[in-house]
């Protein structure tokens, strides 16, 4: 199974080369890849149908106990077959649809890459492996939605889809890590054996995060808005990613993790509520669409809601119904999307109201479309009929709130029928309307595939048990986590469910017949206006950007002085808070003696500081600062540290001289700040002065412990044979520091040399 995934990625990488060699034929050759993979997966059919779970382990990260495990049970195989099967149709279709497109190479690279990742998602047994492939599908979807990159709307939709699914993906990652922490294993098959997951304290968190991941991917309310916008992609992409496969990855994940996380009221009810809400809201929104693809997109969202809803329902019948409905939907919705693409391709419009009577121009396409639409409506004897019957059956037997649940499902079903009539039948019957392009029949490649899909929907419907019985049974068992025995039958007799099916069809027709009225009602009711999570998305996006802008303007305005003010005040705030809330100030001993000479020196230093601030010229400011430094040095002398004082004197002198040299080159002094700013600076400066004083007082009130002084005094002669303690410290005890200091000086010298050279180069 690893080989199947890898082959897709490798061929994707080779695609540009293949196109260079084969030119136009390349697309046909590449279309054989999914066909081949389909056959390959089909070869597993018998083993899986007999209940075998095929596993393939290759060592990946033994350190973490992560192996690249692939497993194939009914659920995986069903998805793999859908992915490769519909993939085959879509690849061939695209060969004709994009024939004259200059970026066709890129299309095949992306879509092969996508197919391989999608196969990885459905066959990975390892949660991290699954996640890796999951994100790859989001990424390839981004590139495919943005395929027509010269359109602004394409780019915007692509980004929107990526942000929504990407955010969900990250939530999913967190959820999967939690799952790993709860169960201690990364293999889904091993998680099944772990008990007590639902009573773990992290369970709720894990479920919420996993659900966010699944809901964003499968466009569940309130994340549904990205899917209709993703219709900016070419039609084959919409058919493949945004109806048949990628959007179902979320549903797949729910199904896959259902036996691990499911069974609790929280899990089931959340799925039921969100699935049901999505189903109904998307149905309402579908009513007012006139764009063929958007119409189908909203209907897809509604179906995805239904699938989630059914996993939430969780009964045996519901899970079986879910599997049948999923397969049926993949078949008919992919056909309808491809047909919408053909119509667009041949007539130049996708506006439903401009399309009518095309059957005389496009007889084959019309035939397929009507076939697919009938299956979608749930007409006897199509596969969609069985799906809808099982669904109704499951809801009626659910045991609680049947009426509420059924009305939700009924709305979904009726609107689905309405969409089928509008998108699949209406464009082909009735009188002819003029379209932007004069219509022709689409090329063979563009209707051959849909014919296969639509007839599959018909044949599966006639002989459901012999074609799909086993796989449906095994898939439903995998979702439930227990063995489900079931026989699919087309005909259950004239019962309540059948009656309701018929009523649904009638309502669907009525909806179509009076569609303008319903569209008006839908618009007037404002369902679409006040439930608009996309607004939330736009709002939060623009809020994020303006927040970003505001905070950058505030914090990073480019002025050095401003940054320093900010840092100093942060430090002040933090220490000040601690100092005044929790320190006992009474420990500070301020009862020290002060001599007259000290007072004089201090007064001189204060006066010099004030002069430095008030000075109008740089030179006088610096000279005053020098005076402050000299004052400090004199205090050192008075406290018996002449060597320190000497150092201070020389440093001060040197600094002043260097400053003067630098000032010589500076432009004239300009006062930058006004009075208010100066007042602010004054407050900050005064506060930091007070704070420093407090801290120094606090520190000096402590007993200082120093082992070093006595150590050096005692050991410098016996150990280092030196009488001058300072010298011994410098060259012996702390020789490494001294060497470091010398290196610093050397580097500084090299730096200065480089700068002088720079200056000389500048003169030349």
């Amino acid at each position, binding site marked *: 199974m690893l080989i199947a995934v890898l082959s897709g990625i490798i061929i994707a990488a080779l695609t540009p080369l293949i196109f260079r060699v084969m030119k136009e034929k390349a697309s046909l050759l590449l279309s054989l890849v999914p066909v081949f993979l389909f056959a390959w997966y089909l070869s597993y059919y018998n083993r899986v149908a007999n209940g075998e779970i095929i596993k393939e382990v290759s060592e*990946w*990260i*033994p*350190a973490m106990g992560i192996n690249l495990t692939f497993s194939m049970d009914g659920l995986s195989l069903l998805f793999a077959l859908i992915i490769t099967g519909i993939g085959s149709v879509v690849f061939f279709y695209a060969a004709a649809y994009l024939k004259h497109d*200059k970026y066709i190479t890129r299309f095949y690279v992306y879509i092969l890459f996508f197919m391989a990742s999608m196969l990885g998602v459905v066959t990975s047994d390892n949660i*991290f492996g699954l*996640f*890796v492939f999951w*994100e*790859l599908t989001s*990424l390839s979807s981004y*590139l495919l939605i*943005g395929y027509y*990159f010269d359109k602004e709307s394409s780019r915007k939709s692509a980004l929107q889809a*990526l*942000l929504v699914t*990407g955010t969900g*993906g*990250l*939530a999913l*990652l*967190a959820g999967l*890590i939690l799952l790993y*922490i709860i169960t201690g294993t990364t293999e889904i098959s091993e998680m099944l054996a772990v008990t007590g997951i639902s009573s773990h304290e*992290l369970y709720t*968190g894990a479920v919420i995060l996993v659900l966010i991941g699944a809901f964003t991917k499968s466009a569940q309310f309130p994340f549904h808005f990205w899917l209709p916008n993703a219709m900016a992609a070419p039609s084959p992409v919409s058919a493949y990613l945004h109806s048949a496969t990628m959007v179902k990855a979320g549903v797949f994940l729910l199904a896959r993790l259902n036996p691990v996380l499911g069974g609790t009221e929280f899990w089931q009810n959340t799925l039921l509520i969100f699935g049901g809400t999505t189903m109904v809201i998307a149905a309402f929104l579908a009513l007012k669409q006139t764009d063929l693809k958007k119409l189908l997109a909203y209907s897809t969202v509604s179906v995805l809601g239904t699938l989630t809803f059914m996993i939430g329902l969780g009964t045996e019948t519901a899970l079986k119904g879910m599997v049948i409905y999923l397969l049926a939907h993949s078949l008919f919705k992919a056909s309808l999307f491809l047909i919408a693409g053909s119509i667009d391709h041949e007539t130049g419009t996708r506006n439903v109201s401009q399309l009518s009577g095309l059957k005389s121009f496009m007889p084959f396409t019309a035939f397929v479309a009507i076939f697919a639409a009938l299956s979608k409506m749930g007409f006897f004897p199509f596969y969609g009929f069985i799906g809808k019957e099982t669904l109704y059956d499951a809801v009626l037997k659910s045991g609680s709130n049947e009426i509420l649940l059924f009305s939700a499902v009924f709305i979904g079903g009726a609107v689905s029928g309405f969409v089928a009539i509008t998108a699949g039948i209406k464009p082909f019957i009735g009188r002819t309307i003029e379209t932007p392009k004069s219509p022709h029949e689409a090329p063979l490649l563009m209707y051959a595939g849909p014919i296969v899909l639509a007839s599959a929907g018909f044949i599966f419907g006639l002989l459901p048990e012999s074609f799909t019985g086993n796989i449906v049974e095994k898939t439903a068992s995998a979702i439930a986590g227990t063995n489900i025995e079931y026989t699919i039958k087309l005909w259950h007799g004239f019962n309540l469910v059948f009656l309701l099916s018929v009523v649904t069809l009638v309502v669907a027709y009525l909806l179509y017949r009076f569609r303008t009225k319903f569209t008006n009602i839908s618009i007037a009711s404002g369902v679409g206006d006040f439930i608009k999570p996309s607004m939330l998305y736009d709002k939060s996006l623009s809020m*994020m*950007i303006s927040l*970003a802008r505001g*905070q*950058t303007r505030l*914090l*990073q305005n*480019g002025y*050095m002085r401003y*940054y320093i003010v*900010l*840092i100093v005040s942060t*430090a002040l705030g933090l220490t000040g808070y601690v100092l005044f809330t929790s*320190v006992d100030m009474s420990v500070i001993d301020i009862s020290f003696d002060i001599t007259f000479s000290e007072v004089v020196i201090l007064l001189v230093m204060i006066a010099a500081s004030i002069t430095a601030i008030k000075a109008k010229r740089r030179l006088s400011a610096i000279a005053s600062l020098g005076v402050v430094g000299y004052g400090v040095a004199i205090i050192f002398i008075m406290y018996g540290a002449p060597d320190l004082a000497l150092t201070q004197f020389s440093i001060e002198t040197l600094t002043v001289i260097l400053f003067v040299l630098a000032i010589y080159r500076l432009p004239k002094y300009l006062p930058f700040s006004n009075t208010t700013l100066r007042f602010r600076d004054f407050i900050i400066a005064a506060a930091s002065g007070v704070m420093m004083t407090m*801290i120094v007082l*606090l*520190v000096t009130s*402590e007993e*200082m*412990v120093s*082992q*070093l002084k006595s150590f050096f005094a005692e050991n410098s002669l016996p150990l280092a044979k030196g009488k001058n303690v300072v010298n011994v410290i410098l060259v012996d005890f702390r020789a490494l*520091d001294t060497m*470091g200091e010398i*290196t*610093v000086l050397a*580097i*500084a010298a*090299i*730096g200065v040399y*480089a700068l002088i*050279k*720079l200056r000389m*180069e500048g003169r030349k």
Partner: protein
Amino acid sequence: MIPNLSEIFSLTAPEIVIAVTLILVVLVDLIWDKNKVPAMFTAALGLIVAGVVILNGMPETGMIPNNYMVVSDKLGLYFKFIIVLTTLFILLFTYDSKEIIESHLRQGEYYALVYGMVLGMFFLTSAVDLILIYIALELLSLSSYVLAGFSDKETRNSEAAVKYLIYGAISSAFMLFGISLIYGLTGTTNLYGVNEVLSTTVVNIYTLGFAVILIIAGIGYKISAVPFHFWTPDVYEGSPITITAYLSVASKAAGFALLIRFVSITFIDHVKADGEWILNGAFDWQTILIVLALLTMTVGNLSALWQKNIKRLLAYSSVAHAGYILLGVAVLTNLGLVSVMIYFAVYMMMNLGAFYVVMLVANKTGSEHISQFDGIGYTMPYAGVALTIFLVSLTGLPPTAGFIGKLYLFLALLDSNMLMVAFIALLNTVISLYYYVRILKHMYLKNVAEMPEKIETRGYSTVVLSLLVVPVLFFGIYWTPLIDFAKYCVEFVIK
């Protein structure tokens, strides 16, 4: 008490190699004063020797030092190895950098100064004495100030250098004050000694706290943690790209090594069997590091959001990444430390790669404005694909190495039950996705009038780029070697 000379040599072997090469580089530059290739080769050779010495020294570490100023342990060697790799890449970049090559005659000093930085960083990763730490920091900073202003083409260059200098001076003054307070409290500058005093006697908690905050300010400046990051965007934008890339990776690595060592040696009581660090309670490290980390990543990401200059954008993104790495430290477990080490290795590759592509584009177009990247995906296909991979990796999405970094980080966070923190980090990743994708959009999805002409990329650049792209992809798919190496290196000398 008097250390054995051969022991000292074995403790500081990599540093000695670097110091000797530094002198050689200066000499070689003096001998061949017109041709700068020998100096470069000497520099590269010295680094390779240092790398070999480091790898050789790994198995023999773990000596418990007795009042030495440096220790030699696998943690330090790991970071040294990252610094060596980064420096080698920077030398490779330099050979391709228009900005530096144009300053032909001054190239010798360029290599010498880079070596000065390396020496400072090496000492930072292994120093356990506050004074040596300070000197190493100065060595590193002084060299980087000059390098930041190395090119004379634009005024923003000198502005960057001056801002860096002033900011650096203030931070190092902060740090020095903190160091002197700690000395005053404990009577020693050796970190082990400080630990001993802190665990046996009661010191004034507020003074200690203040001292620690001051030292954090110094370290925070090196790793550009908020609110000590203000210099970062200006300096990153103004410096030559090679130096920007270098500052964003190597300098940060040294800062983080220092932070980890400072926290773990000074404040640790013992390490539990499951790898949790028990600190001696003198200072609530976890809270302050978490707050710092969250602030850093949020401010970094939000500021990156609307930047138009790619260098500036990457500067903010590197601030954000410092935030993620800080979170790994804040967990205060061995798992957290492993995640930091993995993240760093990954960050090195992807960040260097991103800067290299920016440099290649800037070499052709003379600007780093985001509009210069319009259609780069088609005009420079390989560079475009490479940058895409680096950006995806920076976001932390599979199948790139960046994903592994994030995965281990989140694992460490969730393993310590820090759900809320992980959630904020996650939100941050979403924000970062937005601005990284914006670059992608410019490269691939922007209107390009007609099929533009391809811009030739030198074979040399392609090879260097591959050296970074291949591991980013390789470790994204098969990350065992990386994890094993990091786990092997989580050994640090405490007491």
